[in-house]
């Protein structure tokens, strides 16, 4: 199985090389598409694993479970499932490498060894430890036990969670988007060495870059400091936007709906505005000028909580919740096709599901942009608050703080 992964990685990483050496001729994008499709489809045949106990997803409970499963990360790239003529359930997709930090050190194997099991029934023995996968989490069984046992709330009792550095579906998404961004934007950057105004796809990208710079970075951070932070804001904006859009494709990515991903993004913003905060910023947090001395420590606690907990937490949860909710709503509306089949008939349920999910998907496309915009915008605002010059004027400074506090309060809602 490792061979397949290497082939997959080759197909992914070869793209920039191809671009440099072989694809100077016509229609490079078409070739990319072909390579990409090949890299996906060439694995379809390898991962067909029979799963007797599962049938097609049709009941309400199964739909709930399927959605719950979807919005979580996955250790293999699952494209679709079907039941063949012999009545066997087939899954089409390809496995991804699992990298674990277990009690016996680093362990790596392909996720196909779990045979698409998610109920903790298949036990993989590697490096002296036994691993099971239960609800997209990998647990290490305590030595001596052979079966996963649960308490009343379905929490495993005889297994511990391991640090999981696997190349999961989300990591694949992040890598894909990262490479895509590197390729697209470095080619835009290269265009500027040859001409003043880019052509082709660069003409679409340039206004977006200018939009982030002029509508998000410059007004919120200020003319003096914006240049330093625009690179980060541009990266985050396009990263979130493209991943949000990727989440709307049927490939099943839900990267920006992973709390670990949004947490990392929020902590990046936290670190940036904490370390670029100037003297006035810290003074306004720790020892607010212009208010009675007794109130200052209270304000300091509130401000510290705001700066280190509320702001990053709001960034993290807003993105996570919006994208997860979007996925759940779209999938629930698609599931109307099965759940309302009995009461509305096949045609009615399908039509209702199609119409509703179509419009919700349109809204989700808007939300994909909006959430990227809001995250970037708030990051810029927080950075701008940290680097703003207060001009030493007390009255002005106080008004400024009131404005900032109000703005921040609005943002948390």
């Amino acid at each position, binding site marked *: 199985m490792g061979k397949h992964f290497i082939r997959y990685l080759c197909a992914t990483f070869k793209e920039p090389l191809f671009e440099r050496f072989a694809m100077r001729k016509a229609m490079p994008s078409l070739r990319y598409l072909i390579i990409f499709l090949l890299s996906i489809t060439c694995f379809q045949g390898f991962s067909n694993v029979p799963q007797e106990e599962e049938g097609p997803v049709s009941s309400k409970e199964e739909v709930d479970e399927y959605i719950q499963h979807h919005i979580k990360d996955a250790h293999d790239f699952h494209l679709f499932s079907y039941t063949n003529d012999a009545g066997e359930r087939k899954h089409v997709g390809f496995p991804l490498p699992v990298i674990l930090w277990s009690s016996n050190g680093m362990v790596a194997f392909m996720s196909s060894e779990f045979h698409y099991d998610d109920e903790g029934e298949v036990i993989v023995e590697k490096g002296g430890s036994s691993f099971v996968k239960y609800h997209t989490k990998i647990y290490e069984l305590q030595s001596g036990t052979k079966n996963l046992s649960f308490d009343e709330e379905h929490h495993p009792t005889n297994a511990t969670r391991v*640090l999981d550095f696997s190349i999961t579906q989300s990591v694949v998404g*992040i*890598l894909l988007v990262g490479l895509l961004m590197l390729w697209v934007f470095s080619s835009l*950057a290269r265009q*500027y060495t040859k001409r003043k105004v880019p052509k082709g796809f660069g003409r679409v990208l340039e206004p977006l870059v200018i939009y982030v710079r002029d509508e998000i970075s410059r007004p919120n951070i200020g003319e003096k400091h914006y240049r330093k932070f625009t690179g980060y804001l541009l*990266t985050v904006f396009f990263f979130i936007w493209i991943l949000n859009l990727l989440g709307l494709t049927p490939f099943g990515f839900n990267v920006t709906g992973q709390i670990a991903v949004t947490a990392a993004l929020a902590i990046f913003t936290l670190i940036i505005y904490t370390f670029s905060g100037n003297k006035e910023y810290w003074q306004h947090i720790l020892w607010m000028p212009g208010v009675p001395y007794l109130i200052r420590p209270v304000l300091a606690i509130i401000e510290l909580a705001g700066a280190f907990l509320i702001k990053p937490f709001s960034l993290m949860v807003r993105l996570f919740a919006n994208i997860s909710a979007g996925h759940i709503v779209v999938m629930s509306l698609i599931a109307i096709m099965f759940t309302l089949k009995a009461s509305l008939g096949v045609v009615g349920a399908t039509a209702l599901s199609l119409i509703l999910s179509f419009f919700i998907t349109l809204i989700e496309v808007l939300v994909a942009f909006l959430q990227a915009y809001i995250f970037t915008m708030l990051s810029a605002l927080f950075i701008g608050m940290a680097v703003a010059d207060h001009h030493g004027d007390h009255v002005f400074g106080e008004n400024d703080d009131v404005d900032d506090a109000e703005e921040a309060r609005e943002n948390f809602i």
Partner: protein
Amino acid sequence: MEVLINDFSPGLFVVQTILLLGLIFLLVKFAWKPILTSLNERESGIEDALLAAENARKEMQNLQADNEKLLKEARAEREAMLKEAREIKNKMISDSKEQAKVEGDKMIRQAQSAIESEKKAALADIKNQVAELSVEIAEKVLKEQLSNKTEQLKLVENLLGDVKLN
């Protein structure tokens, strides 16, 4: 909250942090920095070009104003010259008229005096001739009339009679 914590995957968090850090670094180095630099260059280039165009326009306006001013001056000068010429002409005409009048008067006077003197001379001549002629005629008449004695006596008598009347 418990679901959130349960869903949080520390491994994915670490991987995402590393990948994002790398992505930010690479993108800033290979994409954003050159893109933003050339965008700024282009924008300042456009600004400069606009400024230069504005300056050129102003200069053009100045030139035009200068031209207009020069034209106005030239026109005024021409006007003044024309006026002067007209005045000179008028003056010359009136001067020569005056002179001609004076000259004419003088000539007329001379002619008049010449005519007068000629007339006088002619009159004197005529008078002389008439006197001579009348003397001759009188001589002839007297010679004729006083050829006989009676006639002479009669004349004397008449003359005497006239004297008496006086």
